[in-house]
């Protein structure tokens, strides 16, 4: 595997770059295949991930290639999946659990919160908990209740977990491998509406550090910040802003816990304005954290209050209303207009 360690720089003696256009679902599949091939201790577990290849086909073909001991169709119980993954990790395995949809992670919440997140600490560091929990999350897919939620806040608030979310196929390919290589539990939030659009994946490239945020578009007037599917919404908003003469810088958060505040504060120091966007409800959320910390650390740089653009503080609505519920480029622009008015 040619990923960087969590804090360091690329270690790969990369050959000639090998770039392919792939949808994120296939990039994840390639990343998982690589991880399974690199380390015999890696195993995948979840509902329907074997013969079916997962309801999003992210694990397609992997059971055929690596066998039923390494790609496991589990019984239908999320607490059981995560609880047994913990046991496997104690035995030296590196389980990667798939939770079928965002809204079905809650039956496993106790095992995640009280066990997975706390066991290494409970054991005074004698053993680690290299478990990855993959969660296809978020809206824009027109699905029924429980299938479009964004539960990141619950996990970002939980000490002992790391939480990341890729926004591009290339990041997906590399970050899933870094997450699996990490000795800490990683909640890996996959923006399911981004499973299908293609993007370049550089198989011979080097991975950015797992917990680094990244400026993906430079600008001078306002900073726009998000993770996962919302990054592409911000890019669209930045285009609109440019047409209106506003130069927006876009930052992809990538890591939700810890948050790499350095590039964010640098950007806000430069632009003086921040709009944070997310699909999740805004109240007591990841967006609140970022707004609070930036307001604190960039107090004298801010020319306007930090504005948050979020899903409403309601359950995710019936699919026919999702476009009204989910922030789009126009909703982001509404906030941009307001911060620019300062």
């Amino acid at each position: 595997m040619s990923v960087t360690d969590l804090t360091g720089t690329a270690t790969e003696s990369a050959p000639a770059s090998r770039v392919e256009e792939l949808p994120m679902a296939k990039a994840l599949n390639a990343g998982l295949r690589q991880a399974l091939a690199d380390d015999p201790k890696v195993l995948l577990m979840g509902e329907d991930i074997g013969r079916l290849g997962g309801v999003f086909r992210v694990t397609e073909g992997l059971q055929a290639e690596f066998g039923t001991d390494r790609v496991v169709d589990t019984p239908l119980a999320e607490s059981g999946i995560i609880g047994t993954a913990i046991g496997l990790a104690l035995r030296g395995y590196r389980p990667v659990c798939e939770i079928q949809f965002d809204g079905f992670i809650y039956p496993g919440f106790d095992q995640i919160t009280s066990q997975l997140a706390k066991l290494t600490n409970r054991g005074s560091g004698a053993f680690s908990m290299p478990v990855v929990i993959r969660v296809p999350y978020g809206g824009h897919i027109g699905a029924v209740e429980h299938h479009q939620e964004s539960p990141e806040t619950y996990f970002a608030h939980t000490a002992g977990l790391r939480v990341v979310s890729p926004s591009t196929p290339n990041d997906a390919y590399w970050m899933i491998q870094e997450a699996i290589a990490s000795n800490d539990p990683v909640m890996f939030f996959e923006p399911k509406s981004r499973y299908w659009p293609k993007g370049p994946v550089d198989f011979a490239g080097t991975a950015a550090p797992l917990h680094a945020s990244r400026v993906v578009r430079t600008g001078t007037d306002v900073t726009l910040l998000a993770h996962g599917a919302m990054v592409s919404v911000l890019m669209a908003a930045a285009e609109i802003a440019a047409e209106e003469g506003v130069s927006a810088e876009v930052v992809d958060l990538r890591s939700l816990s810890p948050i790499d505040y350095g590039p964010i504060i640098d950007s806000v120091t430069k632009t003086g304005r921040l709009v944070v966007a997310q699909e999740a409800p805004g109240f007591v959320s990841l967006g609140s954290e970022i707004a609070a910390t930036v307001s604190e650390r960039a107090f004298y740089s801010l020319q306007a209050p930090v504005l948050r653009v979020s899903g409403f503080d309601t359950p995710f609505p019936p699919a026919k209303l999702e476009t009204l519920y989910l922030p789009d480029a126009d909703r982001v622009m509404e906030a941009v207009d307001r911060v620019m008015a300062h």
Partner: protein
Amino acid sequence: MADTIIANPTAGPATETTVQFLTPEGEFAPSESAEEYASYLDRLSHDDLQQFYRHMAVVRRFDHEGTNLQRQGQMALWVPSHGQEAAQVGSAFAAKPQDHIFPSYREHAVAHVRGIDLLSIVELLRGNTHGGWDPTDPANGNFHGYCLVIGSHTLHATGYAMGMQRDGVVGTGDDSVDAAVLAYFGDGSTSQGDVSEAFVFSASAQSPNVFFLQNNHWAISVPVSVQSRIPLYLRSRGFGVPSVQIDGNDVLASFAVTAKHLDEARAGNGPQFIEALTYRIGAHTSSDDPSKYQDQALYDYWVARDPIVRFETYLRSLGEGDAFFAAIAEEADDYAADIRHRTLALTPPPASIMFDHVYSEPHPVMQEQKLWLERYEASFEGDQA
């Protein structure tokens, strides 16, 4: 002779004690285990038998219409009930008006028997609502909402039955008063902790619950053998909940066995568990591709045991003629046409429903955000003018 129900051993649990009245060939030949339930069939008039057939046939047709409408883009998802009609219709008929029903998400035939307008299911799967019918409206036959989180509702069913106990409507001996709760779930669901906890709580409270498992042999792509290596009807016994396995494609078995165990529950004899062996003939949902995992022999085996064909043969053996079946076919077509018609007329829900029912009491954030969205939406109206 009683059918062995499952020829293919890889298909999962089968036992000799499975209750069956009708063989797959439609012959009335009760299994030994059926005998204690036989008297319950005396409750059925010929009209009831016709109703059994009618509900099964109409919902089969409705289900196909749902699949078509989904393919034509009218819904994001369809959840087929094809193949499970006998398990559903027989058991639903066994419930009295005062009983309450907690379905999973595939019980379209139960819904139909209880009087639900099945357009509600279309609205739900279309993304117009998260619910669709009001279980507190007497017109809806005490049929509670679909529950998409596997197994959760079995605990609601248990709590509801505990409420009935407190209301004094259990074990009074008055047939028009005594009530029970009938909860449906699938073979995959049995693995969820909540279902086991429902057995624990109902056994502890001796609440009037009948747990009805439709073992359709699959949890999406996962065969029932991954959930359990022994017959699932045995599951509840270690919780002190008596149980029985039935041929779920035999509508008479489904009716008689459910009727008896609902009687037990209503009488105050505590929770009961029924496993109905059946088969999911269609895909898990319209998003699913069973060709990736389906076993053709197993599928063929179960197609040959179709619950509706079987019951038609039986009715014909009782003298029912073409006219009846033609009339039902026409009714089914009409029902489907009406569903299609009304589906095409559906309009998106207003944005306000996002905020109006999150809380029962006034909530400042809901009021604020609803207003914000109204103003925000209104701000574009000028643009378009």
